[in-house]
């Protein structure tokens, strides 16, 4: 494999505190060296971009792939294409597929399928319960042994307090985290939007925002009771974030992530019944959005995940309440997050850390950092260049972006997986 020399770019890695205008050399797929100036390498492919930032390849701790079972929405190959275009080189895949990832063989299959892409490391989540049905525990030990990175029922909350207690308790023995979709199921069952004035005007069944805090409060207590580790996915309300902030201060093993829609959009995006903006959990009031921004800044939120949920046209061309929730997120993850940097809410270091070091630490993997000897998983982006999101023009198969029409500052110029350029 030919060497790659990134020349006079801004080397940026929050994990190691690196922020340096300089060069980085990739040899044999590994980061061989970096510094202010590495001189000239004759046989290396030189990458030079004025004003560009080179950061670790992004680690996305939450994405649905469509495989197995929903290939009409997305395949692993098309998701890998979208991931590469978004600068994502490592991705934790949700298990609520068809069949669900509740068998060790399926975990191994997904890992292998990731390797086949050559551009994306896929870290499969194992199902907490058989079939993600919320009835009986899956074989967490065997799944962990096969390489499941953590456990979750994906878009479905583990609704039974008893089952959640057992899962937290049992998974602790394997050092694994339980990732919860925090919506109290009986309150969220019929909801198509966040309960409130807008849902009332649109005549849509609402889920109270408190459905999130209710489950978060319960599971914090269960984590304290069991000593297990709970992680809340795509947290979106002020109330839940405050509970998590408090639990962290008390030393309870709790962590959380959010996704770009929850700090970039509010519920008004669903106006006129726009189903692309129908997500799970639903978009919130702007006060909640602002609380998410604040929690990104103060460290309450540990990671930003793409929350990529591919849907096809038939899933979305429905009356709002019948449309399938979910939005794509891989290709827009970095740019939408950078909007918080441009607005001054986050430093560049905070923003990148939330997509590299933060999720890597939660998943316990050696990725999301720039260090000599590590695989050269890298993302080169221009923080100021602009583009416009357009459904239909996104990389990959799924086009259901909630950011359709959004103008964004920050463009991924290229992505490298183990030293090989996979995008740009």
């Amino acid at each position, binding site marked *: 494999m030919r060497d790659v020399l990134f020349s006079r770019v801004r080397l940026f890695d929050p994990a190691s505190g690196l922020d340096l205008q300089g060069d980085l050399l990739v040899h044999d797929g590994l980061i061989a060296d970096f510094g202010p100036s590495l001189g000239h390498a004759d046989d290396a492919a030189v990458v030079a971009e004025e004003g560009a930032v080179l950061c670790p390849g992004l680690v996305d701790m939450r994405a649905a792939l469509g495989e197995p079972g929903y290939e009409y929405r997305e395949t692993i190959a098309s998701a890998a294409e979208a991931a590469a275009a978004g600068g994502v080189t490592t991705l934790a895949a949700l298990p609520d597929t068809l069949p669900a990832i509740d068998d060790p063989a399926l975990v191994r299959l997904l890992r292998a399928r990731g390797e086949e892409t050559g551009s994306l490391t896929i870290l499969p989540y194992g199902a907490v319960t058989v079939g993600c049905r919320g009835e009986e525990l899956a074989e967490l030990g065997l799944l962990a042994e096969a390489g499941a990175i953590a456990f979750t029922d994906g878009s479905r909350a583990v609704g039974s307090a008893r089952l959640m207690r057992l899962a937290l308790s049992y998974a602790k023995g394997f050092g694994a985290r339980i990732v919860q979709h925090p919506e109290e199921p009986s309150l969220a069952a019929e909801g198509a939007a966040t309960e409130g004035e807008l*849902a*009332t005007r*649109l005549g*849509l069944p*609402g889920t*109270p925002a408190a459905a999130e805090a209710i489950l978060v409060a319960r599971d914090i207590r269960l984590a304290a009771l069991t000593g297990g580790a709970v992680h809340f996915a795509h947290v979106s309300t002020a109330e839940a974030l405050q509970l998590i902030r408090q639990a962290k201060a008390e030393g309870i093993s709790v962590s959380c992530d959010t996704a770009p829609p929850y700090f970039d959009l509010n519920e008004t995006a669903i106006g006129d*019944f726009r189903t692309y903006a129908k997500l799970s959990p639903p978009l919130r009031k702007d006060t909640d959005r602002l609380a998410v921004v604040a929690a990104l800044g103060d460290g309450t939120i540990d990671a930003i995940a793409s929350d990529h949920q591919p849907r096809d046209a038939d899933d979305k061309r429905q*009356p709002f*309440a*019948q449309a399938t929730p979910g939005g794509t997120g891989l290709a827009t993850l970095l740019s939408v997050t950078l909007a918080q940097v441009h607005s001054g809410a986050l430093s560049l270091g905070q923003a990148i850390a939330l997509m590299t070091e933060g999720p890597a630490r939660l998943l316990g993997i050696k990725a999301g950092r720039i260090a000599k000897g590590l695989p050269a998983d890298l993302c080169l982006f221009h923080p100021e260049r602009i583009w416009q999101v357009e459904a239909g023009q996104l990389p990959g198969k799924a086009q259901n972006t909630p950011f359709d029409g959004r103008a964004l500052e920050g463009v991924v110029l290229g992505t490298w997986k183990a030293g090989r350029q996979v995008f740009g």
Partner: protein
Amino acid sequence: MSYRQKHLLAIEGLYPPEIGHLLDLAESYVLLNRSGKTQRDLLRGRTLINLFFEDSTRTRTSFEIAGKRLGADVINMSVSTSSVNKGETLLDTAATLNAMHCDLLVVRHDQSGAPNLLAQKVDAAVINAGDGTHEHPTQALLDALTIRRRKGRLEGLIVAICGDVLHSRVARSNIHLLTTMGSRVRVVGPPTLMPAEAARLGVEVFHDMERGLAGADIVMMLRLQRERMQRGLVPSAREYFRFFGLDAAKLAAAKPDALVMHPGPMNRGVEIDSAVADDPQRSVIREQVEMGVAVRMAVLDTLSRGRGRNEF
């Protein structure tokens, strides 16, 4: 200024002159209808399709009569929503309608926003004849016309909308129309049947009938579906009638000349007592039906003009 929209999907967002225009025109159709004359050339050669995904003999018939009085070719299509993939049916239907060169499309659907979705896909002017728990614009217009003819105005009147506001598209459309036209609107019902943040719609919220009806000029009752009791939103029909059913005693709190309205069909003995519903001094329920035809004629007339004849 007259009506400026291509469709009639919702009352929310309409301006007072647009509503006023539709009511004035409807008024003229009331007189025409009563005179026994017809105006069968207005929509001659135009096709009106009544597309009903939800049963409603009353509303469908009203649109059918309105269309026929104006000379349109009226076709009724009832589509079952029991099939598994409802959305596919909806858009398949849209494609079919385009192929048939439908001019005016009246849609009733059990899902909020379904007419909006159809309006994006069909060439016809779309009239929402009730969508889920969202809106029922022609019902609000006919209610307003009924009130205006009896009371001479809408502005300043106290209107109490009572019952299952949460699930009522009639309530939503009436709230938007009446607040836009300057009425003081109250909503009255148990908290479990009140939509979240209802007050943000510009209404006063009451959970007690006597207080809610005190001094009201208009008492508008809403239908309570049996399903609400099965889902536990209300413990029982008798309890509901005891606290929220309109009878003479509760009506006594309203002004002596207060009018009683109901969009129909009524559940007698659940939300309204027969003695009140059939009281010729108070109830204008039958008049509402008459106004319905006139209002729908006005809407069909306006939307067909709005598009310009040459477009047909």
